[in-house]
């Protein structure tokens, strides 16, 4: 293997994956904001986990149960590796066209891919590393024990990556029904003992020699000040076996057996790739004959443009995604046994918490799709002399219509059936829709005006979601009033009026900002 070749390919793959993030320094700041926004949640979680582990150390909890739960979680990683390898070896268009036509050897390509996977792991699992470091420090573990935790976790992660790559090669080279069956059976065998957590079964992770059990036992017994030599040795053997499997498989020429997939990267800002992904959506949803058709009979230009916007959202699948999301929220709420909790009690109804949390995502998704897929079509209204402010207003109205009517149609019947305060649900839905859509559309326009077409859409979405959340704080405080004072109709009306006035005020500000920015967009 030629190290220079591997490093060159590694650099290329990383550059392609992170692509647009290198376009400006602002993107680096946005990425830092994204990573550090996990900090509060991670710190909170670390206290909860540490408290549970402290109780375990003091003999107040069942160590076997901890091993079983941790093993189940680790098994999910191995099972995910197996299931992902069912797709065979997937590569991007540029890899097939440029990399595979160069004199590069398959093993060099795989080595570079492994390095790339490790890089992604370091970046995206950063909050997890932070969580582990916090737990280790809160438990005041001595350095040798902390080192064992670190080494065993790394060995396990490396083994999972090697296993995934090797199994993908097996699937690509010898793929057949029996390979699929074998992988699915293995996945089932690996996950089956997880049922012992919920019901009494003799087969438990804690008594099995699974790689996930080895990791769980190592971690738990190190925390309990034990020396899990056999388990640690087992983990090393698992790693060596995965490595041997990988080195055998990597010698095969798999280039002709790869499957091309569209480039999927959270940093991908390429409209072409996004459009490629959206094409199948449009074909599918148009065939569903959603009864929204544009015709010459529309009354005014604004109503025509709003209708066009709603048609777009229906045909590209946003309407379906929103419906699905709220249906899932309702199902979680109903099936989760939350109905016993009364919304008018001392704590907020879980439905309201779910609404408040997830409703913010809808405007982000709508504005992000508009920025990537629709903004490039602005050449037509601009060159036609149409008022772009009217286009922006129609877009905003389309967003608001979709983000209010669908949740209302799903959530309201649930609220009424379960006797949850409808006014509170209304306050949250209307405010998140008005504030969220105006803020997200403003950021989409602002980034277009600055010609920052390379800015990754998920980072822009993250920033606008952060601002939306901050601006929604007063609304959430208002929605909590019935839990502070006695619920009454007068309080409900005051809450609705207060939140509506505040949301309208914020929306007005952002619509004005959109109007003053959209005229300067260059396409």
């Amino acid at each position, binding site marked *: 293997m030629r190290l220079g070749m591997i490093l060159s390919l590694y650099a290329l793959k990383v550059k392609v994956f992170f692509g647009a993030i290198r376009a400006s320094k602002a993107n680096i700041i946005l990425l830092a904001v994204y990573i550090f926004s996990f900090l509060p949640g991670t710190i909170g979680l670390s206290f909860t986990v540490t408290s549970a582990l402290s109780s375990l150390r003091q003999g107040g909890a069942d160590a076997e149960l901890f091993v079983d739960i941790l093993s189940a979680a680790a098994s999910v990683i191995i099972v995910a590796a197996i299931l992902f390898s069912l797709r065979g070896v997937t590569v991007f268009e540029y890899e097939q066209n440029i990399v595979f036509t160069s004199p590069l050897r398959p093993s060099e390509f795989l080595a570079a891919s492994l390095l790339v996977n490790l890089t992604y792991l370091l970046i995206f699992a950063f909050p997890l590393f932070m969580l582990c470091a916090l737990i280790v420090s809160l438990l005041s573990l001595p350095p040798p024990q902390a080192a064992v935790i670190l080494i065993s976790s790394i060995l396990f992660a490396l083994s999972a990556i090697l296993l995934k790559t090797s199994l993908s090669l097996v699937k690509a080279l010898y793929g057949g029904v029996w390979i699929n069956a074998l992988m699915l059976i293995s996945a089932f065998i690996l996950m089956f003992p997880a049922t012992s957590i919920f019901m009494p079964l003799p087969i438990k992770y804690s008594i099995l020699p699974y790689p996930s059990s080895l990791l769980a036992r190592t971690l738990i017994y190190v925390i309990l000040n034990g020396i899990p030599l056999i388990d640690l040795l087992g983990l090393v053997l698992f790693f060596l076996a995965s490595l041997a499997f990988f080195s055998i498989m990597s010698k095969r020429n798999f280039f002709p057996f790869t499957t091309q997939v569209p480039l999927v990267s959270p940093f991908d800002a390429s409209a072409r790739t996004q459009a490629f992904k959206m*094409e199948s959506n449009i074909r599918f949803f148009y065939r569903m004959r959603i009864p929204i058709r*544009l015709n010459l009979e529309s009354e005014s*230009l604004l109503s025509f443009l709003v209708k066009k916007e709603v048609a777009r959202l229906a045909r*590209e699948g946003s309407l379906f995604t929103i419906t699905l999301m709220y249906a899932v929220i309702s199902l979680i709420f109903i099936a989760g046994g939350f109905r016993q909790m009364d919304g008018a009690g001392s704590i907020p109804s879980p439905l309201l918490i779910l609404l408040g949390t997830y409703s913010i995502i809808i405007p982000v998704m709508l504005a992000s799709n508009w920025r990537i897929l629709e903004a490039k079509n602005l*050449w037509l209204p601009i060159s036609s*002399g*149409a008022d772009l402010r009217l286009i922006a207003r129609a877009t905003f109205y389309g967003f608001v219509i979709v983000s209010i009517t669908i949740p209302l149609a799903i959530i309201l019947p649930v609220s009424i059936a379960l006797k949850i305060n409808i006014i509170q649900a209304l306050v949250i839905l209307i405010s998140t829709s008005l504030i969220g859509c105006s803020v997200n559309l403003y950021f989409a326009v602002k980034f277009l005006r600055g010609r920052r077409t390379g800015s990754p859409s998920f980072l822009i979405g993250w920033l606008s979601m952060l601002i939306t959340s901050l601006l929604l704080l007063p609304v959430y405080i208002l929605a909590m009033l019935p839990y502070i004072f006695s619920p009454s109709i007068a309080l409900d009306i005051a809450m609705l009026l207060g939140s509506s006035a505040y949301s309208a005020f914020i929306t007005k500000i952002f619509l004005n900002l959109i109007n003053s920015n959209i005229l300067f967009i260059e396409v």
Partner: protein
Amino acid sequence: MAPVIELINLWKSYNGFQALRGLNLEVNSGEIFGLLGPNGAGKTTTLKIIVGLLKMDKGVVRIKGIDINENPYEYKRFIGYVPESLSLPEYLTLEEFLIYSGKIRGIPRDQIRERMNYYIRLFELEEKRRALLLSLSRGMRQKAALTSALIHDPEILILDEPFIGIDPAGQRVIKDIFTERVKMGGSVFISTHLLDTAERICDRVAIIYRGQNIASGNIESLRRLSKSGEDATLEEVFLKLTEETREHLSREGS
């Protein structure tokens, strides 16, 4: 003939790249005018500035005497534009797209219906009327975009590479449309790489190089300017002029 498009000392840069450097140009009424130049010469930038998709750094653009900096909307009723990188709202059907194009230009519905039906028949797109734009071939999409540019019966057509992806029969229809519009006193301003096509259909051309107009006129005047023979093709003239300019600029640079 009075110029319908006037570009005076036009400058534009983006991301540190100087796309236009004092470009001067005139397009008259009743002519097909071709904008020629190598890659990166500034052809698309010029067209985009004229139709308002890009803001100029410096200079004056007048469309039928209207200064587009002073009145950035009024002049657009005179123009119909088709871009080179054809981005269309894929989620609309052909008919919906044309209705949208007419509506945003404030065209009465009867006129939209009449012109839409006329061009759909002319371009033989009848079967695709209710098909998503997504499902149309490159050539059909180009015809759809051209119909959208013609829906308000503009005096000036501005087209960036209008023949790319169009079959010979479709090209003939488009050329006929150009000729007909010019006969009626309209103007067609096209940017193209197809020099043989430009030679056949354009009354006058301008060759731009690194954001400057290095030669403009009809083919005979360009032959004289480049000191080419009487039977020299536009391609030979073009290559000679751009090469001479390149050498001249590199001498100046050194």
